[in-house]
């Protein structure tokens, strides 16, 4: 028996060994030969977590933080851990009802499953956060409060300059320019936030975490050996004066238009107001999307930055440039006069002038200070018809357009916020196309008084004042003076002085004298400030709109450009108040108040100045019809829905 069975024992042992050999061969293949499993395991178990740095802070010229970071809290929930909590109490705090609570939990489960944290309510308003934090222990561990950085604008001013950040859109994610962003990232969408995104964003850190089968982080991977730390964004220092900016926004309250103030000595923008303005804090935090929709749909277009995007015919504010071209072309001299009797008849149909007394245009200074239409229509025609260019249709028109382009018109100047518009300077090609070759200097004589096809932006006009006050040079207007620890070349182009067309100093002197006269004795007397010599020019651009299919004359756009002090300019400014009549009426006082504030640091307590201030603040020029449809009054000013 035993002998007979001996081989059977061997067979059984062989079966065991055979089976184990198959297993070991398979193990050898899995563990030693095949390498993909290690990779699969890492993909399974390592979570790449982006650590967001805090965004750079923006300071004004006096070192005041005007765009910084604030912390708000998100309420997050892990649905499975929600047990035995007082739902009714939580609903009371969150101001929702039980149905909504259930629905939100269900949504969270749908989105991320029951074991992972999902945002239950984002960016809690302060009062909700306060209450919730006190009783948080009642709702843990299912609920947690997670801090989240948001942008905050301590002065509530400069919305259109500073811009806002928002979550990256799916279309942008497909764009290779945004390759370094992930879905859910925030980035600058407008204003300085967009232009300087690369420096403000800082450097994102990467943390590798090991995760479990449900993607829950379980701790650092390899003790953080491969992690990289986040580097905070760089701070920007602006030439903007936030108090001046805030005053400008106050002055433009109830008005449509804009103010641009530039320091001519370096091109730094001191203030840029687009009226009506809004509190930029509306676009951060809890009420962001609701506020955005209201702003976006408002009839007064508050999101439209009129200072760089609105294009107006410059009207009489264009006359200093007409004079400069005339002087440089040699078609007039400072002493050239024109016998204006109340209108210009050189082109058949008379062009009206506001003055008709003899000698109001006896020389350039007088003509400028009285803003004589005839004088500048005449000068314009002399310039473009000049014999040395072979007449307007050969070289004259183009030469004139080149001058204007040199003055910064008809193209984007290159300010450091996006969406700038170019304005328009019509040239030879334009008229050839429009009039098929049969046109002359009478066709576009209105250009001489800043009307017709010419359009400029407030920024371009302010820049033109820099050129005049600097006697022929300028820096590209810009906001950012310096970047902390800068190693970029973003600011290089703003450090370079640009010289315009080499017009003689005497030509500038003549124009500057004329412009100081505008303030002393001319149309701009309303802008006078005690103790400051100022050069300025009023303008009234005709405004036509299509009403019921017909071209209808609307109230004029009031304009005013100025620079001060005239001998050593520190501020150049352009003010436009849409549909408010003559430039002298509101635009000049606004410019005057801005200049006084900037040069003297405050508005004088002199009753006359205070009266002007009061009048301007109280004036509302937004047309009744537009205001009726606008929601901005309830949004802006005093009844603002503040960020918590």
């Amino acid at each position, binding site marked *: 028996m035993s002998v007979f069975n001996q081989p059977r024992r061997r*067979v059984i042992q062989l079966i065991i060994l055979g*089976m184990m050999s198959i297993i070991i061969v398979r*193990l050898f293949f*899995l*563990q030693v030969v095949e390498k993909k499993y*290690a990779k699969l*395991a890492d993909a*399974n*178990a390592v979570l790449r977590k982006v650590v967001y740095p805090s965004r750079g802070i923006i300071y004004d010229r006096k070192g005041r933080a005007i765009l910084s970071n604030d912390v708000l809290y998100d309420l997050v929930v892990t649905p499975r851990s929600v047990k035995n909590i007082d739902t009714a109490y939580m609903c009371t705090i969150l101001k929702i009802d039980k149905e909504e609570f259930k629905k939100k939990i269900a949504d969270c489960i749908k989105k991320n499953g029951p074991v992972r944290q999902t945002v239950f309510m984002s960016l809690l308003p302060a009062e909700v956060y306060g209450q919730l934090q006190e009783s948080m222990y009642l709702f843990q561990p299912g609920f947690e409060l997670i801090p989240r950085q948001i942008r905050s604008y301590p002065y509530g001013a400069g919305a259109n300059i500073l811009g806002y950040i928002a979550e990256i859109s799916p279309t942008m994610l497909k764009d290779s320019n945004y390759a370094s962003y992930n879905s859910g990232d925030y980035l600058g969408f407008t204003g300085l936030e967009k232009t300087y995104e690369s420096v403000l964003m800082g450097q994102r850190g990467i943390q590798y975490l*090991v995760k479990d089968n449900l993607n829950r982080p379980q701790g650092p991977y390899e003790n953080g050996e491969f992690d990289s730390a986040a580097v905070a964004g760089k701070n920007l220092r602006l030439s903007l004066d936030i108090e001046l900016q805030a005053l400008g926004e106050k002055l433009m309250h109830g008005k449509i238009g804009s103010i641009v103030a530039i320091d001519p000595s370096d091109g730094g923008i001191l203030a840029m107001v687009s009226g009506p303005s809004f509190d930029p804090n509306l676009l951060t935090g809890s009420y962001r999307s609701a506020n955005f929709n209201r702003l976006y749909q408002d009839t007064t277009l508050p999101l439209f930055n009129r200072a760089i995007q609105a294009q107006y015919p410059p009207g009489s504010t264009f006359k200093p440039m007409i004079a400069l071209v005339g002087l440089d072309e040699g078609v007039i001299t400072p002493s050239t006069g024109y016998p204006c009797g109340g209108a210009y008849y050189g082109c058949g149909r008379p062009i009206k002038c506001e003055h008709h007394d003899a000698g109001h245009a006896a020389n350039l200074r007088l003509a400028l200070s009285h803003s004589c239409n005839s004088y500048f229509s005449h000068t314009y025609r002399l310039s473009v018809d000049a014999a040395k260019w072979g007449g307007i249709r050969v070289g004259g028109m183009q030469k004139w357009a080149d001058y204007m382009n040199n003055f910064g018109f008809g193209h984007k100047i290159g300010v450091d916020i996006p969406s700038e518009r170019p304005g328009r300077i019509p040239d030879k090609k334009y008229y050839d196309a429009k009039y098929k070759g049969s046109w002359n200097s009478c066709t576009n004589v209105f250009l001489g008084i800043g009307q017709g096809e010419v359009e400029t932006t407030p920024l371009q006009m302010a820049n033109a004042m820099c050129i005049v006050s600097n006697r022929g040079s300028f820096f590209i207007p810009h906001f950012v003076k310096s970047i902390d620890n800068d190693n970029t070349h973003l600011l290089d182009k703003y450090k370079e002085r640009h010289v315009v067309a080499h017009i003689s100093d005497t030509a500038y002197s003549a124009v500057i004298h004329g412009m100081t006269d505008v303030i002393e004795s001319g149309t701009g007397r309303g802008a006078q400030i005690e103790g400051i010599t100022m050069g300025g020019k009023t303008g009234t651009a005709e405004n036509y709109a299509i009403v019921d299919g017909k071209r209808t004359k609307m109230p004029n756009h009031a304009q005013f450009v100025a620079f001060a002090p005239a001998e050593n300019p520190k501020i150049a400014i352009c003010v436009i108040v849409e549909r408010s009549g003559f430039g002298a009426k509101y635009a000049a006082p606004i410019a005057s108040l801005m200049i006084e504030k900037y040069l003297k640091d405050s508005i004088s307590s002199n009753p006359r100045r205070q009266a002007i201030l009061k009048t301007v603040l109280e004036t509302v020029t937004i047309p009744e019809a537009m205001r009726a449809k606008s929601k901005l009054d309830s949004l802006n000013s005093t009844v603002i829905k503040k960020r918590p």
Partner: protein
Amino acid sequence: MNRPQTKLTQGIDWPIVGLYLALVIIGLMSIFAAEYRGDDNIWQNIIHLNKNYSRQLMWFGISIVVASVIWLTDSKFFTATANLVYAFGILLLLLVLGIGKDVKGSHSWLVLGGFQFQPAELTKLCTNLALAKYLSSQETDFNKLRSRLIAAAIALVPAGIIILQSETGLALVYFSFFLVMYREGLPGVLLVIAFSGIVLVLSALLVDKMILFIIFSVITALVIYFSRREIKRKRSRLLVILGIYGFCSLFVMFIVPFAFTKVLKDYQVRRIEVMLGKENDPKATYNTRQSMIAIGSGGFWGKGYLKGTQTRFDFVPEQSTDFIFCTIGEDFGFVGSVLFIAIYVALLFRIIHVAERQRSTFTRVYAYGVASIIFFHLAINISMTIGLAPVIGIPLPLVSYGGSSLLAFTMLIFIMLRLDADRQMVLR
């Protein structure tokens, strides 16, 4: 009869005890590794029994107590009560059918107080005792067909009841008793034919044809090598072997697919496939996939104890029970896995050695039964973690988490040790 009163541990087979302890300790460590998180308070977990490893530790304590009781019991008790125990086991299985509790889709659990217990684990022991008793009895002539049928029935009746409890995996274990019967004289051909028939059909359905073909070729080569002397004597042997090889290949590659696509009806095919866990059960493939990733990522040397990312973070389901081998594969790599398997092989060979030194048929059959059961569990369990076998839930003996299983294997082994210690006493 006259047991020497010298030493309490007289006659105990220390190698088996050592291998037993090694496996249980490896098991505890692996269960710990599968559950451990960096910030756990281990002692508190052990005291509160709120982790699998702490409960397994408790079961180990119970097992030692039970093993001691067995060791102190007279070995005649087991032979005398074998049939009674078997009857009790069957009764228990039937009881479960009636009042059992559903756990994870199988109706095979009894709840006693706070503990769940799976009688199917225990009936392996009962069946083994009964089979040993029957085969060792004087009246049994295992050369007769009747005896063979009775022996088969003893093994397969519990299996049948367990299938009714939807624990197909555990039921399959009872087929391992055919290995014992083979040792006791069942013609090898029968065993080979039956076994290969099942394996062929299953593997044809579950494993890629080319892989199967390679496996067949390897087996054939091995068989030819080991029977080279017989082949020298009789050339026709080679033809037979090659014939079988050709038939198997044909069977797997053509006949089975043909039967499944042409002969059987669609719904029949689907039923078979669902039963095998092949069709539309992404969870089953997920398990195998994660398990293979875990083991594969271990590499040659492994990631080190408690360093595995896959097993520690719940990627592999049933981590502590059926897929405990993943922890070893990931943390200790190929080297560790081979050593681990070597411990089992050593245990199995030692048990066979112990079996062969018996004068008593009862003890020999019983010991072979223990070896067969352990071997079957081991082979199927590891095969399923590395994608060689379908996922059927049977534990790795002594290592997987599970009180019933640990206790059942402890009893199996220690009854054998008791019987072995008394091998000199009488011829039973």
